[in-house]
């Protein structure tokens, strides 16, 4: 066991944070494509167009792979495809390392993976849609373990009692962060940023 409490070094030059010859990162190009944002650079850049084509081929290949499997009928191919693509995205945009377990254990989890767990937990509460999730670290003098706080934005059903709903979300997130990750939180700040009409409300236990 070591006493290292600083995050591990970030991505290496030979890591997955690939830089295209035009100077853009692969993650940035894929991100713009997924958000379907107008991108004038992409139209004129051979490298970016290739990167986007590559992502499309990857998605198609994953779907075909699932469909060709002899046991495909036992699984939801669409859900599996989403899960695999989620992992690909997390590898490209991992965020910062956050401490996991005790301070002297030198165990970490990438922010994007932890945030995904937080959002999924919030959406187990009926009618809730999770939005932006920020996880912050605060190091206090004389205290080895940093304080970890979650700031989560949600859209809530207009018909729900908001105080109770926020409390349900808080409990669900705390349970998931402890049970699924094993991370100790100092606090959770939940901000309701929009109210949804009944027609817009998502169902319970949305498959992400």
């Amino acid at each position: 066991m070591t006493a290292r409490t600083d995050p591990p070094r970030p991505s290496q030059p030979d890591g997955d944070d690939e830089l295209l010859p035009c100077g853009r990162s692969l993650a940035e190009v894929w991100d713009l494509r997924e958000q379907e944002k107008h991108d004038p650079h992409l139209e004129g850049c051979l490298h970016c167009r290739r990167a986007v084509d590559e992502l499309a081929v990857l998605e198609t290949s994953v779907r075909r792979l699932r469909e060709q499997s002899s046991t495909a009928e036992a699984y939801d191919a669409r859900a599996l495809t989403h899960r695999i693509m989620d992992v690909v995205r997390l590898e490209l945009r991992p965020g910062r390392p956050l401490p996991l377990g005790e301070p002297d254990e030198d165990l970490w989890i990438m922010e994007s993976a932890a945030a995904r767990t937080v959002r999924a937990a919030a959406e187990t509460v009926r009618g809730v849609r999770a939005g932006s999730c920020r996880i912050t670290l605060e190091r206090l003098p004389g205290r080895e373990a940093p304080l970890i706080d979650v700031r989560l934005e949600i859209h809530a059903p207009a018909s729900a009692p908001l105080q109770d709903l926020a409390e349900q979300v808080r409990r669900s997130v705390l349970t998931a962060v402890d049970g699924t990750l094993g991370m100790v939180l100092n606090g959770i700040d939940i901000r309701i940023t929009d109210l949804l009409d009944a027609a817009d409300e998502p169902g319970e236990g949305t498959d992400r």
Partner: protein
Amino acid sequence: MNGTAHIDEVARAVLGVEGVAFLKPGVAQQVRSALAGTGRAGATRASGLRMSRSGGGGEGTWDVDVHIVVLGEARAVDVARGTRAAVAECLRRMFPETTAPARITVTVTGLL
């Protein structure tokens, strides 16, 4: 046993830990390389597992950095602890003469 064989051995130990799905770059890099037809042997595995030794002379401290993706049904911190224990045990087995404790960093980069 050379450096690549050491990494192979430690990688096997990590993949044997309950709850570990794969070493970090498994999906993206491997599939992209396969699609492009430009697979680089060993690059995928080496990116998710880095080993170096400080001090030299075969007695220095091992510095091991492991990036893993964890299966959804497992608890991330438990898998990370299991991974560190597996790496430490593997190093003890491969280098019984080394007394300096290894510095092992485990990072969970994703959950399946």
